[in-house]
């Protein structure tokens, strides 16, 4: 054990101070124009005044913060190393898979029980619905980024396609939610293939740039093509989904029944919210079942193989074109479903809702959760939606809190909250002997 500690490079206090000093210096340079100088209104003219006291406080805060952060990273690293040392030779106690499964079942139970427990709290049900939309989007993007390894920065485009196709089909042609569902998904998938086709040869950064552009193109078209999308004014009075024809409103249209009259209960606006919540829960669970199943099929393994090594895929006779396009199409389709639900829930959509920030948040959910991990997406989506919500009390410091939380997660878990990868199939015999086999092989 002691050998390990000695083998690690010990960071001296001087090094830490120097490191923190550099950070404080950068903070000082940035802070002079941002904090140190400010303009004051002096009776009709602007005058520059200085705030060097505040600047000094910020620089000291940066210095102290950096010291603390470094210390945290180092102690965590050392502790992890020690734990790894202690683990070698021992069989694994509780497998991470089991823990994740248990958490998953608890989360499922909680999400089913939530609207019953908070049946009169509009805010809780609304926020939980938002979380589930992001979970679904995260699961969709997970196919493209997490499994197939294709960095997509324009995922919101498919969200927009799904939302606008339902909005237009319902307001222009009177389609209902359920008829429009497959069409919206199909349209989004078509757009996924349309995007995928020209960028088959691109990888990494280049792919990210083009997908980013695609996301912006869709948004800009929606803003400018007024005849088609009503431009920046958006589309309003989008019909809400019905439960087998039962509407969730106070009074039904001619020949229709409302949910409350059918069941003989008093009308409450919460019914619709709870219905929407369960609807997105079912959609999200179907998405999860679909993606988890695909992952265990040849197509899912092909996506993962593509992420690992594209050249090797070709050498194994796999048509990488089809594999990429199928990942884009299925990811886009799931995004389209989520977008369609979003339109139906809001009743109003405009290009405002489909900015690059949305893409960035969805991508952050996938990356923070751990690429390819389904449960990680749930955790990350919950965190990323709830942190800004809890931060509401901190008003203007809300985004600061959000940023700090993201930095901390990345420091604590650089490869995402749940980065464990569960094999899609196993050789029937148990894994107990695997450790000996590995040792034998290493000799």
């Amino acid at each position: 054990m002691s050998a390990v500690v000695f083998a690690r490079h010990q960071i001296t206090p001087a090094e830490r101070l120097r490191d923190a000093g550099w950070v404080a210096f950068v903070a000082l340079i940035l802070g002079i124009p941002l904090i140190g100088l400010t303009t004051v209104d002096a009776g009709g003219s602007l005058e520059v005044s200085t705030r060097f006291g505040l600047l000094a406080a910020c620089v000291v805060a940066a210095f102290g913060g950096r010291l603390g952060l470094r210390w945290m990273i180092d102690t965590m690293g050392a502790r992890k190393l020690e734990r790894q040392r202690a683990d070698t030779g021992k069989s694994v106690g509780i497998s991470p898979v089991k823990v994740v499964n248990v958490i998953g079942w608890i989360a499922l139970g909680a999400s089913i029980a939530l609207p019953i427990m908070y049946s009169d709290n509009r805010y809780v049900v609304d926020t939980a619905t938002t979380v589930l939309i992001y979970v679904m989007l995260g699961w969709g993007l997970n196919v493209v980024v997490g499994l197939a390894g294709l960095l997509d920065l324009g995922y919101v485009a498919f969200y927009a396609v799904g939302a606008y196709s339902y909005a237009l089909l319902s307001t222009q042609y009177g389609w209902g939610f359920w008829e429009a569902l497959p069409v919206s998904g199909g349209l989004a998938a078509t757009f996924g293939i349309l995007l995928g086709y020209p960028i088959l040869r691109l990888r990494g950064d280049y792919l990210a740039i083009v997908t980013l552009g695609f996301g912006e193109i869709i948004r800009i078209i929606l803003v400018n093509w007024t005849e088609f999308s009503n431009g920046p004014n958006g589309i309003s009075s989008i019909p809400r989904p019905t439960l087998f024809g039962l509407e969730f409103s106070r009074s039904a249209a001619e020949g229709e029944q409302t949910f409350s009259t059918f069941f003989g209960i008093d009308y409450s606006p919460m019914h619709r919210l709870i219905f929407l919540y369960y609807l997105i829960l079912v959609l999200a669970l179907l998405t999860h079942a679909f993606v988890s199943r695909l992952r265990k099929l040849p197509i899912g393994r092909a996506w993962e193989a593509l992420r690992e090594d594209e050249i090797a895929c070709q050498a194994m006779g796999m048509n990488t074109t089809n594999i990429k396009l199928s990942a884009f199409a299925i990811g886009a389709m799931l995004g389209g479903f989520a977008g369609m639900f979003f339109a139906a829930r809001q009743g109003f959509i405009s290009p405002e809702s489909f900015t690059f920030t949305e893409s960035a948040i969805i991508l952050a959910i996938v990356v923070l959760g751990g690429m390819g991990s389904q449960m990680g997406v749930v955790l990350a989506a919950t965190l990323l939606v709830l942190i800004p919500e809890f931060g509401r009390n901190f008003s203007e410091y809300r985004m600061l809190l959000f940023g700090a939380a993201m930095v901390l997660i990345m420091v604590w878990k650089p490869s995402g909250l749940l980065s464990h990868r569960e094999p899609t199939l196993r050789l029937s015999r148990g894994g107990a002997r695997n450790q000996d086999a590995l040792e034998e092989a290493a000799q």
Partner: protein
Amino acid sequence: MSTLLSVCELTMRFGGLTAIDQLSLEVPAGKITGIIGPNGAGKTTLFNCLTGFYKPTTGTLRLNHPTRGELRLESLSSHRVARDAQVVRTFQNIRLFPKMTVLENLIVAQHNVLQRASKFSIAGIFALPVYRKAEGEAMARAETWLRRLKLERLADHAAGDLPYGIQRRIEIARALCVNPVLLCLDEPAAGLNPRESAELNELLLYLCGEMGIAILLIEHDMSVVMNVSDHICVINYGRKIAEGSPEKVQNDPQVIKAYLGEDDEDDADDASGGIAA
């Protein structure tokens, strides 16, 4: 002895550099053909042309496929070379799917068969018998090769975490799962210890003797090439400089010159490739 693959006047140019120059070569069915030559001689380029990763500048590559007749490899894209012509390769710097387990690597290699059986994934999603049967067969095939290459105990480990020599074996096992008629091995013994390369010799002889798979072998480890090859072709500067049985090639003055250089012109010749054994 029938010819499986005939390379005819193959030339590959990259701008002004001629990596392969008018190379002709015959690969017999069910035999091991060794390809040797100093570093930079064009051996890997030849493999890249064969397997569709490069489009040859000129020349033809004719494969007499046992069931599909004559195929022209130079006109096929890389995945079709592996899928339709069943010419499968390994890589000089191992290319596994590192985060996937050994077993998954071997199952991915059977993608085309499984994907067809999954009927656009619909039969797969509902686990219909047609898919379950195909999956069972794929598992059985993977297990056979795992056992043959003594990898079955490592089947559920991430391939990238395993030692180098084992990764080499996994790559060969994975290529075998594609069901090749011609297996192209690019330096399979590189980085192996003497025991491992002796095992490799045994495996190669088994594959061609028992399974009837023709093997094209690029190798610097002479204890492997000279012991297993039926026929050796020596390449230098993209040209074939000698061909024949191992004994004949070993004593060929041209080959000795290519590897060790001549006394009076040791400047430009890159003799560092060196005969390892």
